[in-house]
Protein backbone atom coordinates (compact mmCIF):
# COMPACT_ATOMS: atom_id res chain seq x y z
CA UNK A 1 0.00 0.00 0.00
CA UNK A 2 1.25 3.46 -0.59
CA UNK A 3 2.22 5.48 2.38
CA UNK A 4 0.12 8.23 3.84
CA UNK A 5 1.33 11.67 2.87
CA UNK A 6 1.90 12.48 6.52
CA UNK A 7 4.96 10.31 6.28
CA UNK A 8 6.61 12.53 3.74
CA UNK A 9 9.51 14.46 5.16
CA UNK A 10 10.82 17.73 3.86
CA UNK A 11 12.87 17.23 0.64
CA UNK A 12 16.28 18.07 2.10
CA UNK A 13 15.71 15.75 5.03
CA UNK A 14 14.68 13.08 2.61
CA UNK A 15 17.85 13.54 0.62
CA UNK A 16 20.06 13.31 3.69
CA UNK A 17 18.26 10.16 4.74
CA UNK A 18 18.73 8.72 1.27
CA UNK A 19 22.45 9.45 1.24
CA UNK A 20 22.74 7.92 4.70
CA UNK A 21 20.79 4.91 3.48
CA UNK A 22 23.00 4.27 0.49
CA UNK A 23 26.14 4.70 2.53
CA UNK A 24 24.89 2.08 4.93
CA UNK A 25 24.21 -0.24 2.03
CA UNK A 26 27.78 0.30 0.87
CA UNK A 27 28.93 -0.55 4.39
CA UNK A 28 26.83 -3.72 4.40
CA UNK A 29 28.03 -4.95 1.05
CA UNK A 30 31.70 -4.08 1.13
CA UNK A 31 32.88 -7.29 2.85
CA UNK A 32 30.48 -9.40 0.81
CA UNK A 33 31.75 -8.00 -2.45
CA UNK A 34 35.28 -8.57 -1.29
CA UNK A 35 34.51 -12.20 -0.55
CA UNK A 36 32.82 -12.78 -3.90
CA UNK A 37 35.33 -10.87 -6.00
CA UNK A 38 38.36 -12.52 -4.47
CA UNK A 39 36.90 -15.97 -4.94
CA UNK A 40 37.86 -15.49 -8.55
CA UNK A 41 41.33 -14.14 -7.89
CA UNK A 42 44.30 -16.23 -8.98
CA UNK A 43 46.52 -15.05 -6.14
CA UNK A 44 46.61 -17.41 -3.12
CA UNK A 45 46.85 -14.36 -0.94
CA UNK A 46 43.35 -13.16 -0.29
CA UNK A 47 43.34 -9.43 -0.59
CA UNK A 48 45.66 -9.27 -3.55
CA UNK A 49 44.16 -9.60 -6.97
CA UNK A 50 45.90 -12.05 -9.25
CA UNK A 51 43.84 -12.36 -12.37
CA UNK A 52 40.57 -14.08 -13.04
CA UNK A 53 40.29 -17.81 -12.46
CA UNK A 54 37.81 -20.51 -11.52
CA UNK A 55 40.55 -22.66 -10.03
CA UNK A 56 39.41 -22.14 -6.44
CA UNK A 57 35.95 -23.49 -7.18
CA UNK A 58 37.61 -26.48 -8.78
CA UNK A 59 39.84 -27.01 -5.78
CA UNK A 60 36.95 -26.60 -3.38
CA UNK A 61 35.07 -29.38 -5.09
CA UNK A 62 38.14 -31.61 -4.83
CA UNK A 63 38.76 -30.93 -1.16
CA UNK A 64 37.30 -33.97 0.57
CA UNK A 65 37.38 -32.51 4.06
CA UNK A 66 35.58 -29.41 2.89
CA UNK A 67 32.96 -31.30 0.95
CA UNK A 68 32.35 -33.61 3.89
CA UNK A 69 31.77 -30.71 6.21
CA UNK A 70 29.48 -29.08 3.68
CA UNK A 71 27.51 -32.31 3.45
CA UNK A 72 27.29 -32.52 7.25
CA UNK A 73 26.09 -28.94 7.46
CA UNK A 74 23.39 -29.48 4.87
CA UNK A 75 22.18 -32.72 6.44
CA UNK A 76 21.96 -31.19 9.90
CA UNK A 77 20.39 -28.00 8.59
CA UNK A 78 17.70 -29.77 6.57
CA UNK A 79 16.89 -32.21 9.35
CA UNK A 80 16.71 -29.59 12.05
CA UNK A 81 14.71 -27.22 9.86
CA UNK A 82 12.08 -29.80 8.98
CA UNK A 83 11.62 -31.07 12.53
CA UNK A 84 11.75 -27.62 14.10
CA UNK A 85 9.27 -26.21 11.60
CA UNK A 86 6.73 -28.94 12.26
CA UNK A 87 7.09 -28.77 16.03
CA UNK A 88 7.31 -24.98 16.08
CA UNK A 89 4.26 -24.46 13.89
CA UNK A 90 2.21 -26.82 16.03
CA UNK A 91 3.39 -24.97 19.12
CA UNK A 92 2.49 -21.61 17.61
CA UNK A 93 -1.01 -22.83 16.77
CA UNK A 94 -1.39 -24.18 20.28
CA UNK A 95 -0.39 -20.86 21.79
CA UNK A 96 -2.41 -18.64 19.50
CA UNK A 97 -5.57 -20.56 18.79
CA UNK A 98 -6.13 -22.33 22.07
CA UNK A 99 -6.46 -20.12 25.09
CA UNK A 100 -6.63 -22.56 27.93
CA UNK A 101 -4.78 -25.79 28.30
CA UNK A 102 -2.64 -27.53 30.89
CA UNK A 103 0.78 -25.98 31.21
CA UNK A 104 0.14 -23.20 28.69
CA UNK A 105 1.62 -20.53 30.92
CA UNK A 106 4.89 -22.38 31.48
CA UNK A 107 5.16 -23.32 27.87
CA UNK A 108 4.62 -19.74 26.76
CA UNK A 109 7.61 -18.75 28.88
CA UNK A 110 9.82 -21.71 28.01
CA UNK A 111 9.36 -21.35 24.28
CA UNK A 112 11.00 -17.91 24.32
CA UNK A 113 14.00 -18.91 26.43
CA UNK A 114 16.15 -20.44 23.66
CA UNK A 115 15.98 -17.12 21.86
CA UNK A 116 17.29 -15.04 24.70
CA UNK A 117 19.80 -17.51 26.05
CA UNK A 118 23.40 -16.71 25.07
CA UNK A 119 25.07 -19.12 22.64
CA UNK A 120 27.73 -20.11 25.10
CA UNK A 121 25.28 -21.03 27.85
CA UNK A 122 23.24 -23.17 25.48
CA UNK A 123 26.39 -24.87 24.17
CA UNK A 124 27.57 -25.60 27.67
CA UNK A 125 24.30 -27.01 28.94
CA UNK A 126 23.79 -29.25 25.94
CA UNK A 127 27.33 -30.63 26.27
CA UNK A 128 26.76 -31.31 29.96
CA UNK A 129 23.43 -32.93 29.19
CA UNK A 130 24.66 -35.20 26.42
CA UNK A 131 27.62 -36.22 28.56
CA UNK A 132 25.37 -37.01 31.48
CA UNK A 133 22.87 -39.13 29.61
CA UNK A 134 25.70 -40.94 27.90
CA UNK A 135 24.76 -39.94 24.39
CA UNK A 136 27.67 -40.19 21.99
CA UNK A 137 28.58 -36.92 20.36
CA UNK A 138 28.23 -36.60 16.63
CA UNK A 139 25.91 -35.39 13.90
CA UNK A 140 22.97 -36.61 15.94
CA UNK A 141 23.75 -34.42 18.93
CA UNK A 142 24.40 -31.45 16.65
CA UNK A 143 21.02 -31.92 14.97
CA UNK A 144 19.26 -32.31 18.32
CA UNK A 145 20.85 -29.08 19.55
CA UNK A 146 19.89 -27.15 16.45
CA UNK A 147 16.29 -28.35 16.67
CA UNK A 148 16.16 -27.14 20.26
CA UNK A 149 16.79 -23.52 19.44
CA UNK A 150 15.06 -23.56 16.08
CA UNK A 151 11.68 -24.60 17.49
CA UNK A 152 11.49 -21.30 19.34
CA UNK A 153 12.41 -19.17 16.35
CA UNK A 154 9.88 -20.90 14.13
CA UNK A 155 7.21 -20.64 16.80
CA UNK A 156 7.74 -16.91 17.21
CA UNK A 157 7.61 -16.18 13.50
CA UNK A 158 4.55 -18.35 12.84
CA UNK A 159 2.80 -16.94 15.87
CA UNK A 160 3.28 -13.42 14.56
CA UNK A 161 1.74 -14.49 11.30
CA UNK A 162 -1.16 -16.22 13.05
CA UNK A 163 -1.88 -13.12 15.07
CA UNK A 164 -2.31 -11.19 11.85
CA UNK A 165 -4.59 -13.78 10.34
CA UNK A 166 -8.31 -13.44 10.53
CA UNK A 167 -9.63 -16.31 12.69
CA UNK A 168 -13.04 -15.91 11.19
CA UNK A 169 -11.75 -17.77 8.17
CA UNK A 170 -11.49 -20.97 10.14
CA UNK A 171 -14.92 -20.47 11.60
CA UNK A 172 -16.33 -19.92 8.15
CA UNK A 173 -14.83 -23.20 7.11
CA UNK A 174 -16.39 -24.89 10.14
CA UNK A 175 -19.74 -23.36 9.26
CA UNK A 176 -19.37 -24.97 5.89
CA UNK A 177 -19.06 -28.39 7.49
CA UNK A 178 -15.31 -28.76 7.12
CA UNK A 179 -13.78 -30.92 9.85
CA UNK A 180 -10.74 -29.67 11.71
CA UNK A 181 -8.17 -31.37 9.52
CA UNK A 182 -9.80 -30.10 6.33
CA UNK A 183 -10.04 -26.62 7.76
CA UNK A 184 -6.39 -26.73 8.63
CA UNK A 185 -5.26 -28.09 5.31
CA UNK A 186 -7.36 -25.88 3.07
CA UNK A 187 -7.72 -22.70 5.05
CA UNK A 188 -5.29 -22.19 7.92
CA UNK A 189 -2.16 -23.70 6.46
CA UNK A 190 -2.18 -21.84 3.13
CA UNK A 191 -2.79 -18.62 5.02
CA UNK A 192 0.07 -19.09 7.46
CA UNK A 193 2.36 -20.54 4.79
CA UNK A 194 4.43 -17.35 4.45
CA UNK A 195 5.02 -17.37 8.18
CA UNK A 196 5.94 -21.03 8.16
CA UNK A 197 8.31 -20.49 5.25
CA UNK A 198 9.80 -17.48 6.97
CA UNK A 199 10.33 -19.47 10.12
CA UNK A 200 11.82 -22.38 8.19
CA UNK A 201 14.23 -20.07 6.39
CA UNK A 202 15.29 -18.51 9.64
CA UNK A 203 15.87 -21.95 11.11
CA UNK A 204 17.90 -22.99 8.07
CA UNK A 205 20.14 -19.92 8.29
CA UNK A 206 20.68 -20.25 12.01
CA UNK A 207 21.58 -23.89 11.65
CA UNK A 208 23.96 -23.36 8.74
CA UNK A 209 25.74 -20.50 10.48
CA UNK A 210 26.07 -21.95 13.98
CA UNK A 211 29.61 -22.25 15.30
CA UNK A 212 29.65 -22.08 19.08
CA UNK A 213 27.01 -24.66 19.94
CA UNK A 214 28.13 -27.03 17.18
CA UNK A 215 31.77 -26.96 18.23
CA UNK A 216 30.84 -27.96 21.76
CA UNK A 217 28.60 -30.91 20.91
CA UNK A 218 30.32 -32.31 17.84
CA UNK A 219 31.98 -35.69 17.65
CA UNK A 220 34.25 -37.68 15.35
CA UNK A 221 33.87 -36.79 11.72
CA UNK A 222 30.93 -34.55 12.34
CA UNK A 223 32.63 -31.26 11.57
CA UNK A 224 30.19 -28.86 9.96
CA UNK A 225 31.14 -26.18 7.46
CA UNK A 226 31.31 -23.17 9.82
CA UNK A 227 33.43 -25.14 12.30
CA UNK A 228 35.69 -26.35 9.49
CA UNK A 229 36.00 -22.81 8.17
CA UNK A 230 36.78 -21.62 11.70
CA UNK A 231 39.71 -24.00 11.84
CA UNK A 232 40.83 -23.42 8.28
CA UNK A 233 40.47 -19.69 8.25
CA UNK A 234 42.97 -19.41 11.05
CA UNK A 235 45.47 -21.57 9.29
CA UNK A 236 45.56 -20.82 5.62
CA UNK A 237 43.28 -18.21 4.27
CA UNK A 238 43.05 -19.10 0.63
CA UNK A 239 40.34 -17.96 -1.76
CA UNK A 240 38.96 -21.50 -1.55
CA UNK A 241 37.00 -20.30 1.46
CA UNK A 242 35.71 -17.37 -0.56
CA UNK A 243 34.51 -19.80 -3.19
CA UNK A 244 32.61 -21.83 -0.60
CA UNK A 245 31.14 -18.71 0.91
CA UNK A 246 30.02 -17.34 -2.44
CA UNK A 247 28.38 -20.63 -3.30
CA UNK A 248 26.51 -20.75 0.00
CA UNK A 249 25.39 -17.18 -0.38
CA UNK A 250 24.05 -17.77 -3.87
CA UNK A 251 22.12 -20.82 -2.66
CA UNK A 252 20.67 -18.97 0.31
CA UNK A 253 19.73 -15.91 -1.70
CA UNK A 254 18.01 -18.15 -4.21
CA UNK A 255 16.00 -19.79 -1.44
CA UNK A 256 15.06 -16.48 0.14
CA UNK A 257 13.97 -14.87 -3.09
CA UNK A 258 11.83 -17.89 -3.96
CA UNK A 259 10.16 -17.82 -0.59
CA UNK A 260 9.57 -14.10 -0.88
CA UNK A 261 7.88 -14.60 -4.20
CA UNK A 262 5.50 -17.05 -2.59
CA UNK A 263 5.01 -14.79 0.38
CA UNK A 264 4.12 -11.73 -1.67
CA UNK A 265 1.73 -13.76 -3.76
CA UNK A 266 0.05 -15.04 -0.61
CA UNK A 267 -0.05 -11.57 0.89
CA UNK A 268 -1.65 -10.18 -2.23
CA UNK A 269 -4.41 -12.79 -2.29
CA UNK A 270 -4.91 -12.37 1.44
CA UNK A 271 -5.30 -8.64 1.06
CA UNK A 272 -7.60 -9.02 -1.92
CA UNK A 273 -9.72 -11.39 0.05
CA UNK A 274 -9.87 -9.04 2.98
CA UNK A 275 -10.75 -6.10 0.81
CA UNK A 276 -13.50 -8.08 -0.83
CA UNK A 277 -14.85 -9.10 2.57
CA UNK A 278 -15.14 -5.55 3.96
Amino acid at each position, binding site marked *: MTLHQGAAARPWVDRVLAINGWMIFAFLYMP*ILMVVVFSFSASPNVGRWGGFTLAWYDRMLGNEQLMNSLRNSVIVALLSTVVATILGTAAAIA*LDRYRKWV*GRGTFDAVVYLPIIIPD*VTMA*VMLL*LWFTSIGMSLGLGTIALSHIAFNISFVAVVVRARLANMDPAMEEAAADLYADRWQAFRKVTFPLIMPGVLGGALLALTLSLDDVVITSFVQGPGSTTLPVYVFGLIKRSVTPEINAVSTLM*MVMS*VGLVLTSLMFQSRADRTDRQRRRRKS
Partner: protein
Amino acid sequence: MTLPDQHEQVEQEAVNPRLERKARKQESWRGFFHAAPAYVYLTFFFTLPLIMVYVFSFASRGPTGKPRLEDWNFDSWSKLTEPLFREIALRSLWMAILNTALCLLIGYPFAYWIATRASQKTRTLLLVGVLIPFWSNFLIRTYAWRMLLDSDGLITQLGEWTGFWGQLLFTPTAVFIGLLYGYLPFVVLPLYAAIERLDWTLVEAGRDLYASGSAAFRKITLPLSKPGIVAGSILVFIPSLGAYVTPDILGGAKTTLLGNYIVTQFTAARNWPFGSAMSGAILILMLAATILYFRTDTRTI
Protein backbone atom coordinates in the same frame (compact mmCIF):
# COMPACT_ATOMS: atom_id res chain seq x y z
CA MET B 1 -12.06 -7.83 21.76
CA THR B 2 -10.96 -10.44 19.28
CA LEU B 3 -13.40 -12.59 17.45
CA PRO B 4 -12.73 -15.79 19.42
CA ASP B 5 -13.49 -13.94 22.66
CA GLN B 6 -16.72 -12.57 21.28
CA HIS B 7 -17.60 -15.99 20.11
CA GLU B 8 -16.86 -17.46 23.49
CA GLN B 9 -19.15 -14.97 25.13
CA VAL B 10 -22.01 -15.81 22.81
CA GLU B 11 -21.36 -19.46 23.42
CA GLN B 12 -21.48 -19.01 27.16
CA GLU B 13 -24.98 -17.67 26.90
CA ALA B 14 -26.03 -20.75 24.90
CA VAL B 15 -28.16 -23.64 26.00
CA ASN B 16 -26.45 -26.59 27.63
CA PRO B 17 -23.76 -25.90 30.28
CA ARG B 18 -22.63 -29.54 30.40
CA LEU B 19 -21.98 -29.58 26.66
CA GLU B 20 -20.17 -26.31 27.07
CA ARG B 21 -17.85 -27.76 29.65
CA LYS B 22 -17.18 -30.78 27.49
CA ALA B 23 -16.41 -28.60 24.47
CA ARG B 24 -14.06 -26.46 26.50
CA LYS B 25 -12.28 -29.55 27.83
CA GLN B 26 -11.89 -30.84 24.29
CA GLU B 27 -10.41 -27.52 23.26
CA SER B 28 -8.05 -27.72 26.18
CA TRP B 29 -6.85 -31.18 25.23
CA ARG B 30 -6.48 -30.18 21.60
CA GLY B 31 -4.34 -27.25 22.57
CA PHE B 32 -2.21 -29.47 24.73
CA PHE B 33 -1.73 -32.04 22.01
CA HIS B 34 -0.71 -29.45 19.47
CA ALA B 35 1.98 -28.20 21.78
CA ALA B 36 2.94 -31.57 23.24
CA PRO B 37 5.68 -32.62 20.80
CA ALA B 38 7.44 -29.27 21.06
CA TYR B 39 6.87 -29.21 24.81
CA VAL B 40 8.37 -32.64 25.36
CA TYR B 41 11.27 -31.88 23.06
CA LEU B 42 12.12 -28.65 24.78
CA THR B 43 11.78 -30.28 28.15
CA PHE B 44 14.33 -32.92 27.23
CA PHE B 45 16.71 -30.78 25.28
CA PHE B 46 16.37 -27.45 26.95
CA THR B 47 14.72 -27.35 30.34
CA LEU B 48 16.43 -30.42 31.77
CA PRO B 49 19.88 -29.41 30.45
CA LEU B 50 19.28 -25.99 31.92
CA ILE B 51 18.48 -27.50 35.30
CA MET B 52 21.63 -29.58 34.92
CA VAL B 53 23.69 -26.41 34.51
CA TYR B 54 22.42 -25.05 37.77
CA VAL B 55 22.95 -28.38 39.49
CA PHE B 56 26.54 -28.60 38.24
CA SER B 57 27.29 -25.09 39.36
CA PHE B 58 27.17 -26.38 42.91
CA ALA B 59 29.31 -29.42 42.18
CA SER B 60 33.04 -29.70 42.74
CA ARG B 61 35.66 -29.84 40.06
CA GLY B 62 37.31 -33.07 38.95
CA PRO B 63 40.92 -33.22 37.71
CA THR B 64 39.87 -32.87 34.09
CA GLY B 65 37.48 -30.12 34.97
CA LYS B 66 34.32 -32.15 34.76
CA PRO B 67 31.92 -31.72 37.66
CA ARG B 68 31.93 -34.32 40.39
CA LEU B 69 28.52 -34.95 41.89
CA GLU B 70 29.75 -34.86 45.45
CA ASP B 71 31.24 -32.25 47.77
CA TRP B 72 28.53 -29.77 46.91
CA ASN B 73 29.58 -26.21 47.56
CA PHE B 74 29.00 -22.57 46.78
CA ASP B 75 32.55 -21.99 45.55
CA SER B 76 31.60 -21.33 41.95
CA TRP B 77 28.91 -18.84 42.91
CA SER B 78 31.11 -17.02 45.36
CA LYS B 79 33.73 -16.71 42.64
CA LEU B 80 31.24 -14.48 40.89
CA THR B 81 31.80 -11.86 43.54
CA GLU B 82 35.53 -11.71 42.88
CA PRO B 83 36.87 -8.46 41.40
CA LEU B 84 38.13 -10.24 38.27
CA PHE B 85 34.68 -11.45 37.33
CA ARG B 86 33.10 -8.13 38.15
CA GLU B 87 35.60 -6.35 35.95
CA ILE B 88 34.96 -8.70 33.05
CA ALA B 89 31.19 -8.52 33.50
CA LEU B 90 31.17 -4.74 33.65
CA ARG B 91 33.33 -4.48 30.59
CA SER B 92 31.03 -6.79 28.63
CA LEU B 93 28.01 -4.87 29.86
CA TRP B 94 29.54 -1.58 28.80
CA MET B 95 30.41 -2.94 25.37
CA ALA B 96 26.88 -4.31 24.94
CA ILE B 97 25.30 -0.99 25.93
CA LEU B 98 27.57 1.00 23.62
CA ASN B 99 26.91 -1.38 20.78
CA THR B 100 23.16 -1.17 21.32
CA ALA B 101 23.28 2.62 21.36
CA LEU B 102 25.40 2.68 18.21
CA CYS B 103 23.10 0.27 16.42
CA LEU B 104 20.05 2.32 17.36
CA LEU B 105 21.67 5.59 16.37
CA ILE B 106 22.66 4.31 12.96
CA GLY B 107 19.76 1.93 12.51
CA TYR B 108 16.93 4.35 13.22
CA PRO B 109 17.45 6.83 10.34
CA PHE B 110 18.11 3.87 8.09
CA ALA B 111 14.92 2.07 9.11
CA TYR B 112 12.99 5.31 8.87
CA TRP B 113 14.23 5.88 5.35
CA ILE B 114 13.22 2.38 4.24
CA ALA B 115 9.86 2.49 5.99
CA THR B 116 8.94 5.80 4.38
CA ARG B 117 9.52 4.81 0.79
CA ALA B 118 6.25 5.19 -1.06
CA SER B 119 5.84 1.85 -2.80
CA GLN B 120 5.57 -1.46 -0.94
CA LYS B 121 7.73 -3.11 -3.54
CA THR B 122 10.59 -0.68 -2.93
CA ARG B 123 10.35 -1.23 0.79
CA THR B 124 10.43 -5.01 0.44
CA LEU B 125 13.32 -4.87 -1.98
CA LEU B 126 15.33 -2.62 0.32
CA LEU B 127 14.64 -4.91 3.26
CA VAL B 128 15.78 -7.94 1.33
CA GLY B 129 18.83 -5.94 0.38
CA VAL B 130 19.62 -5.50 4.06
CA LEU B 131 19.26 -9.22 4.71
CA ILE B 132 21.25 -10.67 1.82
CA PRO B 133 24.70 -10.07 3.35
CA PHE B 134 23.60 -12.17 6.29
CA TRP B 135 23.10 -15.22 4.17
CA SER B 136 26.85 -15.63 4.03
CA ASN B 137 28.85 -17.29 6.76
CA PHE B 138 29.34 -15.12 9.83
CA LEU B 139 33.02 -16.02 10.25
CA ILE B 140 33.84 -15.27 6.67
CA ARG B 141 32.16 -11.87 6.93
CA THR B 142 34.19 -11.14 10.04
CA TYR B 143 37.42 -12.23 8.40
CA ALA B 144 36.56 -10.13 5.37
CA TRP B 145 36.45 -7.16 7.73
CA ARG B 146 39.77 -8.20 9.15
CA MET B 147 41.23 -8.06 5.68
CA LEU B 148 39.59 -4.76 4.88
CA LEU B 149 41.01 -3.23 8.04
CA ASP B 150 44.52 -4.63 8.12
CA SER B 151 47.70 -2.93 6.99
CA ASP B 152 47.09 -3.15 3.25
CA GLY B 153 43.35 -3.41 3.40
CA LEU B 154 41.09 -1.18 1.38
CA ILE B 155 39.79 0.76 4.34
CA THR B 156 43.24 1.42 5.71
CA GLN B 157 44.38 2.64 2.32
CA LEU B 158 41.36 4.90 2.09
CA GLY B 159 42.08 6.26 5.52
CA GLU B 160 45.69 6.99 4.71
CA TRP B 161 44.75 8.62 1.45
CA THR B 162 42.21 10.94 3.08
CA GLY B 163 44.35 11.33 6.15
CA PHE B 164 41.43 10.67 8.49
CA TRP B 165 42.57 7.46 10.09
CA GLY B 166 45.41 4.97 10.27
CA GLN B 167 45.24 1.24 10.70
CA LEU B 168 42.06 0.30 12.48
CA LEU B 169 42.59 -3.38 12.93
CA PHE B 170 43.08 -4.53 16.52
CA THR B 171 41.64 -1.31 17.93
CA PRO B 172 38.35 -0.94 19.81
CA THR B 173 37.03 0.89 16.74
CA ALA B 174 37.45 -2.25 14.69
CA VAL B 175 35.52 -4.23 17.28
CA PHE B 176 32.60 -1.83 17.18
CA ILE B 177 32.58 -1.79 13.40
CA GLY B 178 32.38 -5.57 13.47
CA LEU B 179 29.64 -5.64 16.10
CA LEU B 180 27.63 -2.94 14.35
CA TYR B 181 27.91 -4.89 11.14
CA GLY B 182 26.74 -8.06 12.76
CA TYR B 183 23.77 -6.66 14.65
CA LEU B 184 22.40 -3.93 12.42
CA PRO B 185 19.62 -6.09 10.88
CA PHE B 186 18.45 -7.06 14.37
CA VAL B 187 17.70 -3.43 15.05
CA VAL B 188 16.55 -2.40 11.59
CA LEU B 189 13.84 -5.05 11.26
CA PRO B 190 11.81 -4.27 14.40
CA LEU B 191 12.27 -0.53 13.87
CA TYR B 192 11.06 -0.89 10.32
CA ALA B 193 8.04 -2.88 11.49
CA ALA B 194 7.15 -0.28 14.11
CA ILE B 195 7.61 2.74 11.87
CA GLU B 196 5.76 1.20 8.97
CA ARG B 197 2.71 0.52 11.13
CA LEU B 198 2.62 4.08 12.39
CA ASP B 199 -0.56 6.08 12.06
CA TRP B 200 0.75 8.91 9.92
CA THR B 201 -2.48 10.85 10.24
CA LEU B 202 -1.30 11.75 13.72
CA VAL B 203 1.86 13.27 12.29
CA GLU B 204 -0.20 15.14 9.76
CA ALA B 205 -2.42 16.43 12.53
CA GLY B 206 0.62 17.64 14.38
CA ARG B 207 1.81 19.50 11.33
CA ASP B 208 -1.62 21.05 10.93
CA LEU B 209 -1.21 22.38 14.42
CA TYR B 210 1.91 24.28 13.32
CA ALA B 211 4.45 21.79 14.66
CA SER B 212 7.81 21.98 12.90
CA GLY B 213 9.20 18.89 11.22
CA SER B 214 11.60 18.13 14.01
CA ALA B 215 9.01 18.75 16.71
CA ALA B 216 6.56 16.45 14.97
CA PHE B 217 9.26 13.84 14.85
CA ARG B 218 10.31 14.25 18.46
CA LYS B 219 6.86 14.37 19.95
CA ILE B 220 4.88 12.06 17.71
CA THR B 221 6.91 9.72 15.51
CA LEU B 222 9.64 8.88 17.98
CA PRO B 223 7.39 8.03 20.93
CA LEU B 224 5.07 6.03 18.69
CA SER B 225 7.97 3.97 17.38
CA LYS B 226 9.05 3.13 20.91
CA PRO B 227 7.98 -0.56 20.72
CA GLY B 228 10.35 -0.97 17.80
CA ILE B 229 13.15 0.72 19.69
CA VAL B 230 12.62 -1.48 22.71
CA ALA B 231 12.42 -4.68 20.66
CA GLY B 232 15.52 -3.73 18.66
CA SER B 233 17.48 -2.91 21.78
CA ILE B 234 16.74 -6.23 23.41
CA LEU B 235 17.57 -8.14 20.21
CA VAL B 236 20.95 -6.43 20.07
CA PHE B 237 21.80 -6.10 23.73
CA ILE B 238 21.39 -9.73 24.76
CA PRO B 239 23.63 -11.33 22.15
CA SER B 240 26.19 -8.52 22.47
CA LEU B 241 26.59 -9.37 26.11
CA GLY B 242 27.86 -12.84 25.26
CA ALA B 243 29.74 -11.90 22.10
CA TYR B 244 33.39 -12.84 21.96
CA VAL B 245 34.22 -14.13 18.50
CA THR B 246 34.05 -10.75 16.78
CA PRO B 247 36.04 -8.93 19.49
CA ASP B 248 38.67 -11.67 19.33
CA ILE B 249 39.06 -11.64 15.58
CA LEU B 250 38.90 -7.89 15.04
CA GLY B 251 40.22 -6.65 18.35
CA GLY B 252 43.19 -8.98 18.65
CA ALA B 253 41.81 -10.82 21.67
CA LYS B 254 43.31 -8.20 23.94
CA THR B 255 40.40 -8.08 26.34
CA THR B 256 38.62 -10.80 28.25
CA LEU B 257 34.87 -10.69 27.88
CA LEU B 258 32.18 -12.79 29.48
CA GLY B 259 31.95 -15.09 26.47
CA ASN B 260 35.73 -15.76 26.45
CA TYR B 261 35.82 -16.24 30.19
CA ILE B 262 33.05 -18.83 30.14
CA VAL B 263 34.58 -20.77 27.25
CA THR B 264 37.95 -20.71 29.05
CA GLN B 265 36.39 -22.51 32.01
CA PHE B 266 35.56 -25.41 29.73
CA THR B 267 38.93 -25.45 28.05
CA ALA B 268 42.13 -24.01 29.53
CA ALA B 269 40.91 -23.54 33.10
CA ARG B 270 39.14 -26.88 33.29
CA ASN B 271 36.63 -25.60 35.77
CA TRP B 272 33.22 -26.69 34.47
CA PRO B 273 31.31 -25.87 37.68
CA PHE B 274 32.43 -22.24 37.50
CA GLY B 275 31.58 -22.06 33.81
CA SER B 276 28.13 -23.38 34.68
CA ALA B 277 27.68 -20.85 37.45
CA MET B 278 28.57 -18.00 35.12
CA SER B 279 26.26 -19.23 32.38
CA GLY B 280 23.48 -19.61 34.91
CA ALA B 281 24.02 -16.14 36.31
CA ILE B 282 23.96 -14.54 32.88
CA LEU B 283 20.75 -16.30 31.99
CA ILE B 284 19.08 -14.93 35.10
CA LEU B 285 20.19 -11.44 34.11
CA MET B 286 18.89 -11.89 30.58
CA LEU B 287 15.57 -13.11 31.89
CA ALA B 288 15.30 -10.04 34.10
CA ALA B 289 16.02 -7.80 31.15
CA THR B 290 13.44 -9.55 29.00
CA ILE B 291 10.75 -9.39 31.66
CA LEU B 292 11.40 -5.69 31.89
CA TYR B 293 10.84 -5.44 28.17
CA PHE B 294 7.58 -7.32 28.38
CA ARG B 295 6.39 -4.99 31.07
CA THR B 296 7.07 -1.89 28.99
CA ASP B 297 5.36 -3.20 25.93
CA THR B 298 3.42 -6.34 25.26
CA ARG B 299 3.32 -6.11 21.51
CA THR B 300 5.36 -8.95 20.03
CA ILE B 301 7.82 -8.86 17.18
